[in-house]
């Protein structure tokens, strides 16, 4: 097995993200938009906003991953490139992982990088925790994108698959959301929670590609 097909799949997925015209701007816009709606709904009390800010960003991150994932494999199935990728020398799981990782780089990581700015809008103090949280959003986001990729691959041939993807992956997002929120909560579990967060992301990286590979073979069938 040569790595050439995997690298090519990765490169094509990166190109595709930027070729859409907006690149990372679209998911970033959605993420920020979803987050800034919250103060309009719950009021502007600084204490409340400071308490819920990190959690709101977890929810926004989960939602943006769902919204942007819908097309990642569906487009491949429609334009025929999925057929070509499945006939390379690389296993379907590795192609799927490369594409999903590229997708996280262009649509998930920018959201984590933007998080300090949004947390400041939610009345967070300027301290090291902002950078720490950024890291947690990056790690947790990776798990969101990989589990989300399983849903996207399963729903690749389903018209209007977005709702289906959300329903399928919602339970799979639970551990990441819980560990992520606990890691930032400052409670007694906040020492161990980052490790659990990292472990659950590693679990996603280990399991999800095989499920995506099997699902993509099904989508091409």
């Amino acid at each position, binding site marked *: 097995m040569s790595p*050439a097909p995997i*690298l*090519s799949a990765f490169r094509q997925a990166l*190109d595709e993200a930027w*070729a859409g015209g907006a690149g990372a701007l679209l998911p970033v816009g959605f993420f920020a938009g979803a987050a800034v709606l919250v103060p309009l709904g719950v009021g502007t009390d600084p204490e409340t906003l400071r308490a819920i800010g990190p959690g709101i960003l977890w929810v926004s991150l989960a939602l943006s991953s769902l919204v942007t994932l819908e097309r990642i494999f569906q*487009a491949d199935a429609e*334009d025929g490139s999925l*057929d*070509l990728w499945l006939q390379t020398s690389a296993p379907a799981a590795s192609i799927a992982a490369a594409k999903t990782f590229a997708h996280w780089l262009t649509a998930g990581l920018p959201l984590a990088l933007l998080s300090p700015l949004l947390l400041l809008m939610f009345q967070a103090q300027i301290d090291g925790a902002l950078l720490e949280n950024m890291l947690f959003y990056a790690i947790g986001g990776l798990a969101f994108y990989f589990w989300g990729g399983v849903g996207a691959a399963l729903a690749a041939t389903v018209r209007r698959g977005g709702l289906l993807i959300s329903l399928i992956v919602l339970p799979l997002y639970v551990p990441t959301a819980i560990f992520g929120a606990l890691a930032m909560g400052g409670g007694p579990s906040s020492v161990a929670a980052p490790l659990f967060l990292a472990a659950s992301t590693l679990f996603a990286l280990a399991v999800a590609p095989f499920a995506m590979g099997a699902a993509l073979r099904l989508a091409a069938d």
Partner: protein
Amino acid sequence: MSVGSLLSAADIGMIRGERLLFREVSLSLAPGEAIVLRGPNGAGKTTLLRILAGLTQAETGTIDRNAPHHWVAHRDGLKPHETPREHLTLWARAWGQSQTDIEPLLDEMGLSRPSDVPAKHLSAGQRRRTALARLRLENRPVWLLDEPLTALDADGKTLLLDMIAAHRAEGGGMIAAIHGDAEFEIDMQVDI
């Protein structure tokens, strides 16, 4: 299985939902041969071709693939933003053929003028020519083609027929699903 066959299939049967598409289809492709799959719309020509390519799992039967194959189907495999040059460069790399020179290939396929136009602005014929150009990125003995002549103009058809003739002369084989006239010499016809 016959000796020296590039690809052979025995007793292939396929069910979709509860519908039997075909059964007991057997074929064997020898070097230099061309097999044509024929049948009315919805009979399962494309499905059989996908089974031969390994994309679809057959319900019954066995397939022996003794040589690598190329795949060109009616979905051309181009991304909307991809230009013919980018498309061919990408697949040359993915197949470990990055030393292949794309320029003469673009020229021979009549794609040098639109070589930097994104696929969404190309005509169906130009997209099909780009997909067919993949056949020449790497030398693979088996070509699996689904309706390869559709969307091509007269020049394009001549080009493809020349490519097929050259491929067969070099000992390559092809299996194609074709609706109209084949316009090339056929060794075996499979009706489904």
